[in-house]
């Protein structure tokens, strides 16, 4: 029986800010959309995130961050993926990111930034349309 490939995504929380409620909510929304969601927990370094993403063979990494971590941690994640030859993994981010930074992040290869106010439905829909099992 030929089985369709399942979308695998990783939800990661880089940086030092404290709670992961947002990450857990988005993980549940992904599960309900039929994705397999690898959750890695709080306080992850980009190195740890990238290593986990490779071992787990995910199609997308969703980074979430509240405290301005995007400026260093998001770009570093993309850079590491490129170094490892794993830049076919889509990276997107969520959190409070000022408009002027969004352009910068997109330029360096973050596919999408979800700013506060984006609904779960919108996020899931974007993933369904833009992330295909590789």
């Amino acid at each position, binding site marked *: *029986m*030929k*089985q*369709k*490939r*399942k979308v*695998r995504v990783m939800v990661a929380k880089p940086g030092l800010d404290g709670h992961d409620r947002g990450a857990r909510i988005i*993980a*549940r929304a*992904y*599960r*309900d*959309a*039929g*994705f*397999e*969601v*690898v*959750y*890695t*927990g709080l306080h*992850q370094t980009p*190195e*740890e995130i990238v*290593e*986990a993403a*490779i*071992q*787990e*063979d995910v199609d997308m990494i969703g980074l979430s961050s509240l405290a301005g971590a995007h400026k260093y941690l998001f770009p570093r994640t993309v850079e590491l993926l490129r170094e*490892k*030859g*794993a830049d076919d993994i889509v990276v997107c981010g969520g959190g409070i990111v000022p408009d002027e930074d969004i352009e910068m992040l997109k330029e360096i290869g973050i596919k999408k930034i979800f700013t506060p106010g984006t609904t779960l439905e919108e996020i899931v829909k974007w993933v369904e349309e833009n992330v295909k*099992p590789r």
Partner: protein
Amino acid sequence: MDKVVEKVVAGDVRSVARLIRDIDDGIPEVRESLKGLYPYTGNAYVIGITGAPGVGKSTLVDQMLSHIRKKDKTVGVLAVDPTSPFSGGAILGDRVRMQRHSMDSGVFIRSLATRGHFGGLTQSTRSAIDVLDAMGKDYIIVETVGVGQDEVDVVKTAHTTVIVVIPGMGDDIQAIKAGILETGDIFLINKADREGTDKTMSDLRLMIEMDQRKYEGGKWKPPILKTESIIDRGVVEFLEEVEKHKKYLTETTEGLELRKSKGKVREELGEMVKNRLIQEVLSKLTETGEFDGAVQAIVEGKTDPYSACDALVLPRLGLHTG
């Protein structure tokens, strides 16, 4: 040699990760890679950890990783979580507890979902074990939630099967004993900081003595240990028991028979044949539309399911309908 085989044997993490994905997704080409890898398997020692949700399995695995790594042995982990029957998706959260090992190149951690596809969890997990084995990992730890028959079958594949309970689970132990208790080689009462540990210990001992048939008259008596995996208490002692069990398996003839017995091979090959047959036949019948046609005919009252089944299956097997 197959490129994939070459890379996996060389320990290439991306190739290993991808091959496990292909196994899970049921890509037919993996069979060739698995055939090529088989000669490189048989060196890893497989430990299965099972128990009810939240008893502390992943926390335990995390501590095991630290201790095994101190001895310079490498480890692969397969952590299985249930697929949601409603969406087909899954949240794979075991990794959270083990993430401190993610930068260690001697550790490979992979989260898997039960999925419930044809061929079953057992088959795909066995193949994933073979891949990590061929990759050169000394130990492979498989974590599953001990609820469904599938998950129990998976840990039965292991050399040493570990069953984790927590204090005060008396009734739950009753509930799981049918499928699980007799498969256990080592029992752990985790969260032994909690009340009721001694009572659980004696309940468990009684039940094991009544239920264990596997080692009847044998030399291995499954030990029951207390652990507090969160503070690493009892984990070293537990690993010593694993080594003892390993020694028992490799050194006693009785043990060797358990591990490589014809019975075990027969069971595994039987399952493989069964799954493959179902896969091949059902996918052909679906492709040609015969299956849907038969459904329609039954619904319309033109035939009965018994005749329809004969008509579908027998010709595929080169047999004639009665």
